[in-house]
């Protein structure tokens, strides 16, 4: 019944699919990790607030407003456009053999040739995820009853201690489901970086499809792979939720 399905295409391109899968997983893991770290900082930045005293304006201008603008920009523009912007505009500005702001010379040449698309892709996905994760952190932290903060502060805990021992542990439980969703979104959105020539799963499928002019096999095959990984991720998040559910 599945005779029409030419498994030989998948088998022939198996090494490319495998490398693509590996790249997709790398991109996703980097995106989750960097996105979570940056997202926590951005999220805390967005709710940073000093009621009075000399720090009121510095905090607003140097911390809160930049975080707000960054999040608004990333959430308000398409990821696809962000990928192109980062790959063709931002990264060449920073890493360029002649006049890169960050890295120049032979190292820049090497990075560009060997890892150019990967650096841009990982950067774009991480920066994008950070904005969404920042909102998850912000919402999670703000959902904690203000009485919790008051109780901790009234015992003499500092703001940082209150966040660490009281607010973030409680917020984390509420943030798990949306964080899981974000990880799954990230995995699927990583397919967009095939547009800049990064050889991940979707790129592998496109290559195989182009060679045989057959579209069902490669795209169904990678769909299945995406599906398996997203199922595994949902299951993992579900287990974590149960583990961290209130006792």
């Amino acid at each position, binding site marked *: 019944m599945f005779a029409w399905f030419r498994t030989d295409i998948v088998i022939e391109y198996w090494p490319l699919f495998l490398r693509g899968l590996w790249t997709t997983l790398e991109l996703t893991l980097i995106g989750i990790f960097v996105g979570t770290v940056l997202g926590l900082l951005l999220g805390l930045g967005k709710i940073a607030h000093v009621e009075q005293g000399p720090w009121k304006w510095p905090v607003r201008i140097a911390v809160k407003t930049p975080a707000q603008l960054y999040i608004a920009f990333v959430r308000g523009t398409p990821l696809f456009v962000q990928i192109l912007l980062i790959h063709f505009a931002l990264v060449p500005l920073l890493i360029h053999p002649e006049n890169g702001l960050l890295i120049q010379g032979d190292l820049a040449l090497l990075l560009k040739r060997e890892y150019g698309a990967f650096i841009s892709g990982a950067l774009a996905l991480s920066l994008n995820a950070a904005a969404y994760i920042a909102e998850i952190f912000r919402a999670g932290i703000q959902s904690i009853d203000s009485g919790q903060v008051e109780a901790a502060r*009234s015992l003499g805990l500092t703001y940082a201690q209150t966040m660490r021992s009281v607010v973030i542990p409680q917020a984390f439980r509420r943030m798990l489901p949306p964080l899981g969703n974000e990880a799954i979104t990230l995995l699927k959105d990583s397919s967009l970086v095939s547009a800049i020539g990064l050889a991940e799963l979707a790129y592998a499928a496109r290559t195989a499809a182009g060679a045989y002019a057959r579209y069902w096999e490669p795209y169904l095959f990678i769909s299945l792979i995406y599906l398996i990984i997203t199922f595994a991720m949902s299951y993992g998040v579900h287990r974590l939720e149960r583990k961290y559910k209130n006792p």
Partner: protein
Amino acid sequence: MIQVADLQKYFGKKKVLNGINCDIKDNEVVCIIGPSGSGKSTFLRCLNALESAQGGTITVDQFTVTDPKTDLNELRTHVGMVFQRFNLFPHMTALENICLAPLSVKKVSRSEAQSQARDLLKRVGLADKENSYPQELSGGQQQRVAIARALAMEPQILLFDEPTSALDPEMVGEVLDVMRSLAHSGKTMIIVTHEMAFAKQVSDRVFFMDGGQILEIGTPEHIFSAPRNERTQLFLSKIL
């Protein structure tokens, strides 16, 4: 010793504290009574700087609360607070709730914090509940854990913000019993309450507040049997 002079507080444009003046001596038990919205809780929360004052001065022992240079975290270890809604940390057991501040602020050892916490739980009659989470406890039990938590920092002063208002009637007594025994232990206590019988029984002085001001200060006998201020009379006539 607490000294408050001409304390002013606004929420936005609304004036909630309109020139509070009072002195509270060491080891004194003061109950603050008055109608809802009279600024009782706000006044209490100004004393440990959970609310910031916009005018006037507050000094609490060696701390000038209204001075921006004062280390508020240090002040707060000196002034414990018990809240209307308990505000226990739901992800921690009763014992962990009590140990948190000694561990992170005083940096005592875990074994020391735990043995002190067990003593405190015994003192509030909950020695067998150390491993219970807040949601496994009744309201009265939760509030007693919250009192033990506030005592763990060995504060000189304890603030109670309507500690029995969120409780079912049958649980009010157990919390008041704990507070009564504290009142005899020589701590300064300031209690915002609607429990008039309790106020009459334990307090050295009673403050009557209305409209963001302290309108009358006196011994419980004076306030409850012969109030001089018209609004005190009206308030008491409605509730007694």
